[in-house]
């Protein structure tokens, strides 16, 4: 960017938010230029921290006038390189917009600003609304509630309710024109209880990775917080048994959350929980008496009797379906929710890097996909690190192979990149669609979605962002 133009924009931005919240310092630009993934680094030109929708609107209007890219940012912890400014421009760090504006006890929703984190909402509800809870992602507590929903994250109530965008019940959005739009019931009333029965305009923003507008407020569902909880585990000695156990539990509709992990991932994680460096390469191989897969179902109850009955019914269902299965369990352990906020430590302790091909796909092809994905890990001498979460009572499945790695080890980075490329080919063959899609995977998806889908997608982007300033180079339009 021409220095004189940048200086003029910086001057304008300083008038909007104050000079202390605008930076062109090399340290800031460097920090926002990359993330925990191996995605290529790209430097922004300016970092800005607004505090209000009015400031935000002024910034976006200015950026649109100057045709300068704008990249919304909260914690930068997504595993997709989604906040790396591919074409430079303004990183819009939204952490100062962190108000929990409303919690409606009766209608069970919370209205939050972009900077509100999982940790913040957990503490707020525990203090002010202890009978209600939000759901929590397998991620650090600094993760944004809103960004998690925008990128369709999978959380610990996803078995019941699907991905995080499914429980959005209202939006307030600033368009590149500076228009401020409310979506859902809040457009016509004071309450934010649901998107329906309006036309579902939220689809113009959810899942778009900040390429169509900036969300300034979001209403998310919150739920009753049952007083009794436990976790039930099954240890499957092979993937076939794991598949059957999962299918058995799905049909019970009992758990709040149903996840499965490669046993090797748990073993690698043990080092991390002892505050040691964890490493996937060379691969940890399974001992003969060790399980292949660990399945954990999170169960809650309003009474202890209800809880016990649920646990018993789930155990019976698995016993009945998996008569020939090779597994142990059920065993009850303390609720996994107790692990928050350190639940992701096991995959954050390998040297600054974390990568995965994360997907949503059909349960019907889960077994074949997991097997092939794990075999690819064997090929690359990487420990098996499959992580799966059953979504929306089994109507679809979250599936990924967690790949924590040392950013200071170029050979390992290359190994991880090569593995991910092969895993992406695999999942596209088996009907699993990458989520939080890194730009390289977006381009691959665009090759398979069909030309008419692509045309429609680009027309929507063109309509909402004609100057292509919103997080450009990702969904909707390739980079320059």
């Amino acid at each position, binding site marked *: 960017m021409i220095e004189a133009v940048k200086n003029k924009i910086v001057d304008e931005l300083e008038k909007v938010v104050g000079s*202390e*919240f605008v*930076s062109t*310092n*090399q*340290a*800031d630009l*460097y*920090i*926002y230029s990359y*993330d*925990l993934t191996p995605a290529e680094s790209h430097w922004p030109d300016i*970092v800005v*921290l607004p505090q209000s929708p009015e400031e935000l609107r002024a910034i976006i209007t200015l950026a649109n006038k100057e045709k300068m890219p704008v990249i919304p940012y909260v*914690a*930068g*912890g997504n595993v997709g390189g989604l906040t790396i400014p591919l074409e430079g421009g303004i990183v819009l*760090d939204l*952490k*100062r917009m962190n108000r929990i504006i409303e919690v409606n006890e009766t209608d069970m929703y919370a209205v939050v600003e972009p900077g509100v*984190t999982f*940790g*913040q909402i*957990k*503490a707020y509800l525990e203090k002010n609304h202890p009978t209600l809870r939000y759901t929590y992602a397998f991620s*650090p*507590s*600094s*993760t944004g509630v809103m960004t998690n929903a925008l990128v369709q994250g999978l959380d610990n109530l996803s078995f019941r309710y699907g991905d995080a965008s499914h429980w959005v019940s209202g939006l307030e959005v600033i368009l590149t024109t500076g228009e401020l739009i409310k979506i859902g019931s809040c457009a016509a009333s004071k309450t934010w209880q649901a998107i329906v029965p309006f036309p579902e305009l939220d689809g113009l923003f959810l899942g778009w990775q900040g390429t169509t507008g900036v969300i300034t407020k979001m209403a998310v569902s919150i739920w009753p917080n049952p007083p009794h909880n436990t976790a039930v585990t099954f240890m499957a000695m092979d993937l076939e048994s794991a598949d059957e156990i999962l299918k058995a539990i799905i049909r019970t509709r009992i758990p709040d959350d149903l996840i499965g992990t490669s046993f090797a991932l748990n073993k690698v994680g043990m080092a*991390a*929980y002892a*505050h*040691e*460096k964890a490493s996937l390469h060379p691969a940890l191989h399974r001992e003969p008496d060790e399980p292949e897969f660990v399945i954990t179902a999170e169960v809650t109850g309003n009474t202890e009797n209800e809880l016990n009955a649920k646990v018993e019914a789930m155990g019976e269902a698995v016993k009945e379906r998996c008569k020939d299965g090779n597994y142990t369990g059920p065993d009850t352990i303390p609720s996994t929710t107790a692990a928050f*906020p*350190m639940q*992701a*430590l096991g995959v*954050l*302790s390998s*040297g*600054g*890097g*974390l990568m995965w091909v994360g997907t949503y796909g059909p349960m019907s092809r889960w077994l074949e996909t997991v097997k092939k994905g794990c075999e690819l890990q064997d090929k690359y001498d990487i420990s098996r690190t499959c992580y799966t979460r059953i979504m929306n009572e089994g109507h679809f499945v979250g599936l990924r192979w967690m790949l924590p790695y*040392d*950013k*200071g080890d170029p050979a390992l980075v290359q190994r991880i990149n090569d593995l991910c490329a092969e895993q992406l080919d695999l999942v596209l063959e088996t009907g699993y669609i990458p989520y939080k899609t890194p730009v390289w995977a977006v381009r691959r998806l665009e090759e398979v979605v069909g030309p008419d889908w692509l045309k429609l997608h680009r027309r929507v982007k063109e309509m909402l962002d004609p100057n292509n300033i919103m997080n450009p180079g990702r969904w909707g339009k390739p980079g320059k």
Partner: protein
Amino acid sequence: MVLDELKEWLYGCTHCGTCKSVLEIFSPVCPAGEKYRLESYYPSGKMLIARGIVNGVLNLDNDDIMERIYACTGCLSCEQQCGVYHRQHIFEIIQALRTEAVTRGNLNPAYMIMVDSLKKDDNVFGKPKAERGDWAKDMGIKDAAQEKVDVAYHAGCMVSFDPELWEVPRSAVSLLKAAGVDVGIMGMEESCCGGRAYEIGYLGEFTKYAEHFLETFNSLDVKQVVTSCSDGYSTFKKLYAGVNIPAKFDMLHMVEYLDSLIKDKKLRFTKKVPMKVTYHDPCHLGRHLGDDGVYEPPRDVLKNIPGIELVEMERNRLNAWCCGAGAGVSQANPDLSLWTANERLKEAKATGATALVTSCPWCERNFKDAVKEYGEEIEIYDITEIARKAL
């Protein structure tokens, strides 16, 4: 520690942000990050800056980068929250960046007075060495440099040269005397502990003072050295271990000693001190000491003082919010320092306490200055000042 020796920790941070808030209660922990809000001010940002410097992407010859490196109070709260394997090396890396800057000649002008004063007068405040013992002039305290004593009281730079804080050492010595302790001081022969020099990157100065401190008190044959300064205490406990001179004496913080004197029934409080107070844990008396953090002795002392009602702030003990004075911030960046202190004062006021009690003169000074700057209505005391009222 220099940056080259810390390379194995440089890639530990994923920038996950867990270090930004207290685990479980999710209240903020990082003064610089919370004041400035840019990622470069948070510990994870500083880890990335270190990576950038080592990889040659960033340069220390940049005033803004230097400002960020020095905008850290060394409170170690980030290390308390982080769970990753590099977690005990976060401030070490920041300190190493400062040492690297000093080594490369990228000096921070704000510290020139301090460094010159150390070289000339053995203190960090630019005061004449001859005035160091003035706080004790009329107290008739033994001169530990001249006559044998069991316990040497080390006042430290802060209380020695700040008349507004003289009540701290005077109270401490009065309490020791009341308990029958054979105590003396070094007066003008006392020197800086070197802790600040270490934190701002002057390793040579630090080593000089560490050696001097150890050799001096070893030669005096004292049983114990007691100090009211938490900075000095943690410097001795944590940093002197790296200096190859074994200590022949025990080092105690005044609050530990006071607690033991009370528990051994050598010191009794007779007067009522009717106050509702909250206790601020100094970082250097807590997190800086790791598993040996001194958290309960000050609370036990306060509970033993008749009339004192002790209430806790939300962030206490291991999770205490910093006073803002540490690691040279009060000298180089008073805005950050006082803002940080005022955040703590607001938290203290929210408990309903009328006074904040601490056990570090750096904290006390900074809180008093923040009261002047921001006008929060709360009294500030060192724990010895409160204890002395009860004699």
